């Protein structure tokens, strides 16, 4: 697989003509957005002044119209960016991987992961599905939300998960369910109370204490089979998952259910979206696309999912 520096090269060399063109579009677009923004603000101000009241209504209309206008203005640019930057980037890593800019991982798989509570709304984009070294893998940007009703009877939405969601074949046979979550209780409440809280988590299976102190500090493991959890999480895999976590630099949720490994990396924002107010040629902007893609497609190699055991051949 290509390294990050090779991908960065690809981004700045092969994609340079495309980026230059997109950069022109981006500058025009940001001007247009600012103009539309000023126009809407003036209209809203005049409306509020002449109506002498209905401020709530004016504010609501201002936000709604602004949002629609922003989306509308961005639509073509976003599509152009995904097709001429993200797609070639994916294909430069592996030409056989199909990419779709509008679809996402199915709700069925999201719920099968058992990582999060079931969402009321699931949206996402940038879906990649294919085979790497004979291992089925798929990932996409995902945003899962839950609906709540506040005291006034109004609907509000809260985010369950937003980030990168990866599903791949796992190289060992197992029948139970093992869930690995970021360790929040133990780091907030200390070891003793944290562990007591974890072992009394009614929503989860039995707590599994792992024999790798560093892993145990970062993650908490629940499973319905104490032995199988350790069969899956060998010392080698624990180390690799730790490395993966450090590399991603974001909270990582992992589960082993059925024949799959599910990984959810919480970025709390929409990924692979074009930047509007910052240059596409900026190193930081470029690295975010490159690094996230490298992390997702690199899972097979990183976790050595392609080294199958005898029983799975």
């Amino acid at each position, binding site marked *: 697989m290509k390294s990050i520096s090779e991908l960065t090269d690809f981004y700045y060399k092969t994609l340079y003509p495309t980026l230059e063109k997109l950069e022109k579009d981006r500058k025009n677009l940001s001007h247009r957005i600012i103009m539309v923004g000023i126009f809407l603000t003036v209209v809203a101000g005049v409306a509020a002044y002449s109506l002498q009241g209905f401020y709530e209504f004016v504010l609501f209309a201002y936000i709604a119209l602004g949002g629609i206008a922003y989306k509308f203005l961005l639509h073509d640019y976003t599509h152009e960016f995904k097709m001429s930057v993200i797609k070639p980037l994916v294909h430069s890593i592996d030409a056989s991987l199909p990419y779709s800019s509008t679809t996402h991982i199915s709700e069925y798989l999201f719920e099968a992961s058992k990582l999060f509570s079931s969402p009321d709304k699931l949206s996402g984009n940038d879906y990649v599905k294919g085979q790497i070294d004979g291992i089925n893998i798929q990932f996409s940007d995902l945003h899962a939300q839950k609906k709540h009703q506040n005291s006034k009877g109004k609907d509000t939405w809260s985010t369950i998960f937003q980030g990168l969601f990866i599903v791949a074949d796992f190289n060992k046979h197992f029948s139970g369910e093992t869930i690995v979550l970021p360790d929040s209780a133990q780091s907030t409440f200390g070891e003793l109370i944290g562990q007591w809280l974890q072992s009394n988590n009614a929503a989860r299976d039995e707590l599994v*204490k792992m024999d790798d102190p560093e892993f145990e500090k970062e993650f908490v493991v629940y499973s319905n089979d*104490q*032995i199988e959890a350790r069969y899956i999480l*060998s010392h080698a895999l624990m180390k690799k998952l730790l490395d993966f976590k450090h590399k991603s630099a974001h909270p990582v949720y992992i589960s082993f259910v059925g024949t799959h490994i599910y990984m959810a990396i919480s970025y709390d924002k929409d990924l692979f979206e074009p930047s509007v107010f910052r240059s596409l040629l900026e190193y930081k902007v470029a690295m975010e696309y490159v690094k996230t893609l490298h992390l997702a497609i690199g899972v097979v190699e990183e976790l050595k999912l392609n080294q199958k*055991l*005898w*029983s799975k051949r």
Partner: protein
Amino acid sequence: MSTSLIILAVLALVLVLMYNSLVGKKNQVENIFASVDTVLKKRYDLIPNLVASVSKYMEHEKSLLEEVTKLRSEATKPNLSDAHKIALDAKVTSALGSIMVAVEAYPELKANENVMHLQHTLHEVEEQISAARRAYNQAVTDYNNAIEMIPTSFMASLMHYGRKQVFEIDVSERQNVNVKELFS
């Protein structure tokens, strides 16, 4: 009057909880040891097959094969204590490891489909054993902690609970195998 009653009730509740948690921990150890036993048996079942497949070629390692066979027959005897089983497991692990290293020296064996299959199956079983051992060690550590820590330690001594042994990895196993020494 009522306060003393409440104190007594709370005290009784604490004692019951302590007692139950100790029994729970002891049963967890036994429960997981049963699973350890199952995977160990799985490996013992592979030994006759392995010995039969390699003995034709391995002239120089006859003693090693005999030792493994002997260990197997000892380990499959009924009514062994847990500690004895743990000790035997360590010996079998190191003996099988030596055989696997020795196989590397015989190209005919290395290419043999049957041996290759056995090797992979053995490797898989070793992984299961390792997982079971780690689960057992954690259960024993929880149990040992409970019987040595205050306040459950008083309860444990009343119940005549003693420390249990964990699977220790042999020191010789941790060191790299000296291949030269094996064939000298």
